[in-house]
């Protein structure tokens, strides 16, 4: 059977599973549509949360990012550490409060329609930015593995999400996410196990990372350091100079994670507060399975790629272009690998041409005239099954896994958007007399609308689509996270404080991002170039979210103190969240 046929069977097979689940898990009430009836088992919810969380970008790109070196450990810590904040500070209390959406908590706790609408606005900015990447990611995964163009791939994906999200709401999304998690984690870890066995002889990649490199007999990381150093790159494990920015970036990712509405609403689906706590633990187990594999995969595939190019060692002649392996040719066709023989010697040289001393020294001596291989980092994951000579069915699984990662996150985001529109904007702001049955109809219509908009934006990605990290995490950290925390832990905060805090934190963060990345991300409208020497106090625009959060806290507390106390009704509500 051809590889195409195998990939096709895997992808179509997974789609059939999702559709069957959708028909089985139809939502029959708004409670089922918004929170899956509130009776999802904490372990299953943990799995669904992990699928919700692990996006197309995490599946395809994070290992590539981490393979750059130590500095990008920020992603690993940032995208797991947020769950400690969720588990201890937010998930249990928000579950006990018992609303269906995040803006509903804000609207009810602060007893203010304005606060609710501001929260909806923040939610839409965050989730819409996030969802575009998932839609394009699904399209790309399709195009890579099945011979359809990415537009067709995107439309097919949208149709599948449409079926289970519109029919089943949160209930359908939850159970398909459980299936999607299973597919994506197998697709990610099995190739990593293969690679780890090949490079270190250890079954667990987590052990392989600190294990011994089989070929040379020295520790893997030490070998990697040596190889990259020989090619003029910075040591793989080298420390960073701007620790302050790495610290702030990690903090922004963690705080942002804890403020993302599509993650928070997952905890509304478990039966009670005790289960919400356990569920956060389970979510982290399933996420950790992925994120502890990432660094191992990153280090091993980088070393493996360099060893492919320098089969006899870095001091010996490199690979001849004519002798390149099959997978190399295949990925050249996609443009993710590009070779240009700058010195016309027929060999592929890969080294750090930006390192001037190295370029003038070693490179010049050996007749190298520039780095000849451009490697898109996504290839570390995408080409892995072929690089490590894995069986054909694994490549099929990889295709289904990449698409599962995109769809599961997309459906969680679409649900967050549509429930905020139907429950917060329509039911609780514009049409208070909506019956349960009508509200469900509107919820489904909102879902259709959200999918349509996301599909359209996926096909015509606007400039901000590439700014998920800056926009989604920056805004979640600086607007929603503080008002949720304050809503639970500070009884004195009133609606004025919450609204002022969200606006101040959000505006500050957005302005700082726009100053460097362009106003509304329009090219050439930035005030300063986005380089470290222009960053105020060394803070990159991607790291500013936690400063925005601090700003939000200060403004919210000051404004609340200067205005009247929240009503007795509200204070009672806060007491009941703490002591039931």
């Amino acid at each position, binding site marked *: 059977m051809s590889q195409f046929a195998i990939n096709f069977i895997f992808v179509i097979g997974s789609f059939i599973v999702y559709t069957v689940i959708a028909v089985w898990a139809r939502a029959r009430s708004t409670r089922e549509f918004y929170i899956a009836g509130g009776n999802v088992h904490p372990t299953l919810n943990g799995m669904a949360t992990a699928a919700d969380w692990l996006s197309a970008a995490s599946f395809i790109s994070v290992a590539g990012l981490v393979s750059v070196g130590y500095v990008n450990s920020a992603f690993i*810590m940032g995208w*797991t550490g947020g*769950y*400690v904040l969720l588990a201890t500070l937010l998930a249990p209390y928000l579950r006990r409060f018992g609303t269906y959406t995040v803006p509903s908590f804000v609207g009810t706790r602060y007893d203010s329609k304005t606060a609710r609408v501001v929260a909806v606005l923040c939610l839409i900015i965050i989730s819409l930015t996030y969802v575009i990447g998932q839609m394009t990611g699904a399209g790309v995964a399709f195009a890579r593995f099945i011979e359809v163009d990415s537009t067709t791939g995107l439309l097919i994906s949208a149709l599948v999400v449409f079926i289970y999200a519109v029919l089943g709401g949160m209930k359908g999304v939850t159970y398909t996410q459980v299936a999607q998690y299973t597919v994506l984690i197998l697709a990610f870890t099995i190739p990593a196990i293969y690679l780890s066995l090949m490079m270190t002889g250890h079954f667990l990649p987590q052990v392989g990372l600190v294990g011994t490199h089989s070929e040379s007999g020295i520790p893997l990381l030490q070998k990697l350091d040596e190889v990259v150093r020989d090619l003029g790159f910075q040591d793989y494990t080298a420390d960073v100079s701007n620790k302050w920015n790495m610290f702030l970036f990690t903090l922004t990712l963690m705080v942002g994670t804890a403020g993302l509405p599509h993650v928070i609403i997952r905890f509304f689906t478990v039966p009670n507060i005790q289960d919400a706590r356990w569920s956060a*633990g389970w979510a982290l187990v399933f996420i950790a399975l992925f994120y502890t594999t990432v660094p191992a995969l990153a280090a091993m595939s980088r070393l493996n790629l360099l060893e492919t190019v320098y089969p006899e060692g870095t001091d010996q002649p490199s690979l001849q272009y004519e002798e390149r392996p099959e997978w190399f040719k295949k990925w050249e066709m996609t443009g993710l690998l590009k070779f240009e023989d700058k010195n016309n010697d027929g060999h592929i040289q890969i080294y750090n041409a930006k390192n001037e001393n190295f370029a003038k020294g070693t490179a010049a001596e050996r007749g190298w005239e520039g780095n000849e291989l451009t490697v898109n980092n996504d290839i570390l994951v995408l080409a892995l099954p072929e690089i490590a000579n894995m069986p054909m069915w694994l490549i099929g699984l990889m295709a289904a896994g990449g698409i599962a990662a995109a769809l599961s996150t997309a459906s969680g985001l679409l649900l967050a958007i549509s429930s905020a529109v139907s429950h917060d904007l329509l039911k609780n702001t514009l049409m208070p007399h909506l019956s349960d049955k009508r509200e469900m109809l509107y919820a489904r219509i909102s879902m259709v609308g959200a999918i349509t908009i996301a599909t359209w934006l996926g096909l015509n990605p606007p400039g901000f689509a590439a700014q998920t990290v800056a926009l989604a995490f920056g805004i979640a950290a600086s607007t929603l996270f503080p008002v949720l925390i304050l809503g639970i832990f500070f009884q004195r905060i009133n609606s004025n404080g919450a609204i002022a805090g969200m606006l101040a934190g959000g505006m500050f963060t957005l302005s700082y991002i726009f100053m460097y990345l362009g106003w509304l991300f329009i090219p050439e409208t930035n005030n300063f170039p986005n380089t470290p020497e222009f960053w105020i106090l060394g803070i990159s625009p991607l790291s500013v979210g936690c400063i925005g959060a601090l700003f939000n806290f200060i403004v919210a507390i000051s404004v609340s103190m200067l205005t009247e106390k929240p009503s007795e009704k509200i204070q009672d509500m806060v007491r009941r969240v703490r002591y039931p």
Partner: protein
Amino acid sequence: MSKEITEQDKAYWATNLRLILGCLAIWATVSYGFGILLRPYLMGISIGGADLGFWFAQQGSIFTFLILVFFYSWKMNQIDKKFGLEE
């Protein structure tokens, strides 16, 4: 009917806050501390070809987060039971 705060409620909340603070202190120490800011001071301790700080940034902090979240859930659910606040 509004809820009256009893001495027991106050004790419950204070226990909870102490537990949260303890967990977050460890959370910050392993990630921001060992993984980032204190890494230069841990250079002497090596683990699998790299230094301890590198390992904490890439693996150790996640394992610690896992233990923390489960410990918190277990402990807090115990406290709920002790104060008779189970749902």
